[in-house]
């Protein structure tokens, strides 16, 4: 009996909270809303230390904070959300810590693709960005399953950066461009056409004769399918990008609240959106000229 009343009260609070959020979002929607927000989820371990929790607990609270933030973003109408889940640099941590983080990530990926999860509720398609070959087989398979399971969702997109660094992404894109060009050249040669490989000038219609250009590299980036981020939010007050979306953040607002990731909440998202709106015309102008 008491439990039922408790449930009803918490349902009521949730309903009120959702109603208030909708109200605030309708005010915010008067101005421009970011299309793409990226999160660097920093501070899980420091949060656990601050609260005297067990080591892995910080990451679990972090995942709860993530689900809430995703819900708020999709309610506001942000179409693309990118999260920095695991960097290639994080492999330098103690093996036990890496192992337990990987297990948590695998479990959470499997949670995400379940029928009743938030991902299906909001029609979210999941992509994994990064050098997935560096991941262990079970995690990689879980990631591939998630991408296939959500391929039919079209309302929003969630990009999870796993085994990712921006420099690795750039090297990978350059590698693919070079291989693509080599294949084109080989195809031409096998058709018996002469070709000067070192000559940069060429007929515009013949793509293989020209040198690699910026759009070729951008096509081969892991994040090629989505527009550049509008806001990057990094928690725990750190002001660096730590090798995250360096190529894509040329005209992106950087916001660094000083709370740890598990402490992030609705008000931080509202502040980030208001900051974006204040700087919108300047940033749009810059991105037109670049």
């Amino acid at each position: 009996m008491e439990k039922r009343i408790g449930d009803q009260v918490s349902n009521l609070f949730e309903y009120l909270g959702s109603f208030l959020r909708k109200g605030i979002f309708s005010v915010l929607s008067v101005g421009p809303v970011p299309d793409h927000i990226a999160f660097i989820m920093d501070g899980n371990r420091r949060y656990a230390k601050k609260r005297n929790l067990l080591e892995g607990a910080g990451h679990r609270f972090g995942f709860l904070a993530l689900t809430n933030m995703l819900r708020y973003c999709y309610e506001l109408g942000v179409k693309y959300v990118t999260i920095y889940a695991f960097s290639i640099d994080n492999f330098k941590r103690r093996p036990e810590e890496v192992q337990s983080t990987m297990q948590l990530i695998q479990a959470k990926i499997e949670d995400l693709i379940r029928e009743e999860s938030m991902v299906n509720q909001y029609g979210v398609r999941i992509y994994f960005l990064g050098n997935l070959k560096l991941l262990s087989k079970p995690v990689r398979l879980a990631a591939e399953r998630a991408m296939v399971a959500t391929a039919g969702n079209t309302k929003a997109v969630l990009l999870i950066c796993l085994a990712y660094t921006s420099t690795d992404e750039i090297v990978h894109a350059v590698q693919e461009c070079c291989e693509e060009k080599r294949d084109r050249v080989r195809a031409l040669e096998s058709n018996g056409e002469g070709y000067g490989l070192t000559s940069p000038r060429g007929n515009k219609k013949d793509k293989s004769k020209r040198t690699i250009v910026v759009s070729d590299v951008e096509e081969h980036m892991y994040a090629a399918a989505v527009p550049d981020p509008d806001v990057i939010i990094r928690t725990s007050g750190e002001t660096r990008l730590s090798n995250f979306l360096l190529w894509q953040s040329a005209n992106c607002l950087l916001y660094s609240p000083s709370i740890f990731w598990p402490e992030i909440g609705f008000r931080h998202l509202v502040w980030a959106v208001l900051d974006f709106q204040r700087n919108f015309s300047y940033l749009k102008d810059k991105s037109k000229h670049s």
Partner: protein
Amino acid sequence: MGSIRIIKKSCTPSFQRWSNNKNRILDFGYEMQKLLKWISQSGNVGLRVLWLILHLAIAIWYFLLGVVQSVESFLIATDILKRYEALDISKVRYLAVVIHSEEARHLSKVFELLQWLADIGVKSVCLYDAEGVLKKNKEVIAERFSNAKLPEGAAVNGPLVTCRNLTMEFVSFADGKEAVVKAANYLFVKHYANGIKEKLQFTEPQMGEALGAIGSGGAEPDLLLIYGPTRCHLGFPAWRLRYTEIVHMGPLKSMSYGSLVKAIFKYTMVHQNYGS
């Protein structure tokens, strides 16, 4: 014959009553539509007003914050606030400054900033602006900074200029994405052009070496100061930004010595984990 019957039928009193009721319903529906439209327009106006009030409140907040920061930087500059005196500049091996291109045209402000950096003890600085205004004026800046025509002692080495113990590097948007593309073409010519069949795997050091070979191989700055309206690095070369601390200083026209000292001091107190 049939049509006369229809006309007769339409003139009966019951049909007229039905027609009048229908018109009343239509009128009512039309009035309801107008009312809903009015409510939604007022609602929209109401939301707009709330949004404007919210942004006004934020503008006031930033204004007050600006006043507090100006007072603090005055206190730092006049040595009243002693805690920033223990600044250990050796922790900043390479400093970068991003300037909004419109403001970069005010070269006098740029000279003043360089003077302050030299006074603080910075040895190498990288000056970036997206349109390359600073790059175009690098001789002017170097001459004005050294207070004389560039002497033979001052080395003008590609993008680097050294005078009065301060090495300045001038960088623009073309040294970012365009430089990576040039490096890609360099790598293609080096590794694929002579038809090597084996599968190659480029590494990050190879990419770094390629960027150096095409003339965009500068060092990674420890700290990046942004002088402009927003906290945005405006296309600073991605390859060099991996672990750089990024600090927004506000517009160049309202720059102050005190806030510069505070930003550099805060950097020297930061401890990086580098992911581990």
